[in-house]
């Protein structure tokens, strides 16, 4: 099903390339490098070795029985991408793309970042492989995620705060694309999600699908059967596609993406692109977009910087339209309740992004009951969110009670 849909980088009516001609040569070069790499055992073994000795793969599966009591008693299995080096799934993609960058003979990478996880992962890969790295980050996000800004700088990357537009992830991508159009000859754009022009949605998915491949075997080994549902948070959608992909051909497994509902989709202040948007073109690809009647992108809102994006990967748009995956919105409040609950019941502080998937699991678990098995992509850890969460819960940061 999805193989057929991927011809020319399309997923049904979604995907494709909506970019200046200036970038076509670079996208073709990248596509060719990616195709060659997937068929090259040397590339595959180099990446696998990096994952084994640097990322820390395979990531483990953790059962969460105390959290499960709040999710209808269903079995809750967490795929621990938060334990990867740099603290999230993002490292899977950046190591792959950084290796491709070297194969293409380019010396400089640029990246956009929202929460800072992709920026940190990119800066890490660049440090490891001796590449120059520039990270574009919305000025608003540099304030929300100051710790990650410092991490990127320590890793030797230059962080450029973006002051145009809404000063968040969307505008960081605009600025990165402007840089790329100007410097494409020696620069690779290390895009951090399954959006953007072909080949990014396919390539980034291919670097993340290891999550679902590992998890499927781990769930079978632990429980003897496939899970009833696989859940993941969806901003651009990279961690979700990563864990979904291996299960697409298992029709009995429900795939559930949890979008950032902000103050609630009905309020208009949200980042739930599939739940509350419509088909359109943004950042080089056709997918669902939050937009107004003139096709102008509408600013998104979420407590989670990593989900605060008015677009979504085109494969998710397609999986939604054909009914293979379902997408629901989780409000800021619901996500923060789940954040607190996992911390206190399991001793795992999740990223606020990931907390949206956990809040979804609490609902789906209650719907399916105690016989159900839910697999959740624990895509990132919450260290970077301590400041935001402390403010939200009114916990003083000066050590006073």
């Amino acid at each position, binding site marked *: 099903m999805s193989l057929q849909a991927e011809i*020319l980088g399309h997923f049904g009516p979604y995907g*494709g*390339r*909506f*970019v*200046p*001609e*200036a*970038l*076509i*040569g*670079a996208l073709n070069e990248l596509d060719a490098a990616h195709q060659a790499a997937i068929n090259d055992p040397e590339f595959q073994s180099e990446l696998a070795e990096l994952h084994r000795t640097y990322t820390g793969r395979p990531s483990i599966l953790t059962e969460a029985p105390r959290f499960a009591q709040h999710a209808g008693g269903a079995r809750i299995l967490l795929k621990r991408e938060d334990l990867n080096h740099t603290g999230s799934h993002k490292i899977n993609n950046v190591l792959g793309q950084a290796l491709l960058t070297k194969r293409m003979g380019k010396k400089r990478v640029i990246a956009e970042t929202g929460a800072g996880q992709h920026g940190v992962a990119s800066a890490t890969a660049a440090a490891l492989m001796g590449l120059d790295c520039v990270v574009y980050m919305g000025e608003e996000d540099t304030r929300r995620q100051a710790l990650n800004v410092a991490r990127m700088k320590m890793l030797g990357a230059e962080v450029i705060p973006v002051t*145009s*537009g809404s000063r968040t992830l*969307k*505008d960081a991508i*605009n600025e990165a*694309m*402007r840089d790329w*159009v*100007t*410097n*494409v*000859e020696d620069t690779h754009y290390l895009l951090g999600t399954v959006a953007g022009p072909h080949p990014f949605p396919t390539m980034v998915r291919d670097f993340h699908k290891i999550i679902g491949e590992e998890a499927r075997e781990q769930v079978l080994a632990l429980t003897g059967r496939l899970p009833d549902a696989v859940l993941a948070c969806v901003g651009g959608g990279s961690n979700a596609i990563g864990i979904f992909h291996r299960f697409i051909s298992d029709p009995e497994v429900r795939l559930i993406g949890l979008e950032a509902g902000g103050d609630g989709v009905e309020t208009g202040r949200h980042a739930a692109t599939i739940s509350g948007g419509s088909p*359109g*073109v*943004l*950042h*080089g690809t*056709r997918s669902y*977009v939050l*937009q107004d*009647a*003139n*096709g*102008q*992108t509408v600013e998104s809102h979420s407590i989670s910087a990593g989900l605060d994006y008015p677009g979504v990967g085109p494969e998710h748009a397609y999986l939604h339209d054909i009914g293979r995956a379902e997408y629901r919105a989780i409000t800021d409040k619901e996500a923060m309740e789940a954040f607190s609950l996992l911390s206190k019941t399991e001793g795992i502080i999740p990223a606020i992004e990931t907390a949206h998937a956990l809040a979804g699991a609490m609902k789906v678990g209650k719907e399916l009951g105690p016989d159900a098995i839910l697999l959740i992509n624990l895509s990132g850890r919450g260290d970077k969110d301590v400041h935001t969460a402390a403010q939200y819960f009114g916990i003083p940061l000066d050590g006073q009670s």
Partner: protein
Amino acid sequence: MSTPLEDLFVRTRGEKRAALIAYVPAGFPTIKDCHRIIQAFVDGGVDAIEIGFPYSDPVMDGPTIQAAAVTALDNGTGASDVMDALKVASDAGVPSVVMTYWNPIEKFGVTKFAAEIASHGGSGVIHPDITIEESTEWLNAADASSINPIYVVAPSTSDERLAKVTSKCAGFIYAASIMGVTGARTSVSSGARDLVDRIRKVSDLPIAVGLGVSTREQAKGVAEYADGVIVGSAFVKAILDAPTIDEGVSAVTSLARELALGVRGK
């Protein structure tokens, strides 16, 4: 049936000079004052006018045009204002086109957009971010309304691809002088001339060069090898820098007069 834009290039080629194409976003500096800027272009001797459809995510534009787009969007500019501005330009007897990113076209309705361009006297649309591979519906719509689909090519575009893109393009081909975004620059890259030479080998279409042209000398230099000179950011900057709209209008007229000499090799 030819468009006024196509007729213009027949004429300027006959006069052995380049055409001067000026850009302003609809709704900038205000919805009404944009119409005064258009008249200033006409008074200054501009040959064709490019009306920008302000867009929230203009990845091909530098800071100057981004700033103008923000102002225009804050003024509430929408598709009807773009069409009104187009009509002001074409009513003044100057061939005019709309420059827009793709999503506003798709949201408006592809066929309807082409029809509205035609009914407002427009000759075509410049669309910097739609590839020929994604253009089937648009090319049918442009053809049905007899308007020119205008693509933008860059120094990095291969010869093979130049042949493909120019075969789908009409009116003129927009040659980006450099790898980069819009904005005035101190010199026009030598890459522009190489690109124009490469396009000539695969197409007879008129070629207009844009990105970075802001002075009479630069216009004169480009006019030696291209059929058209496109100036955008320099006009927008003149408007942004002027303390009042009256001074902005007069700065635009003066700059247009200078550039009009440049495209005539003077």
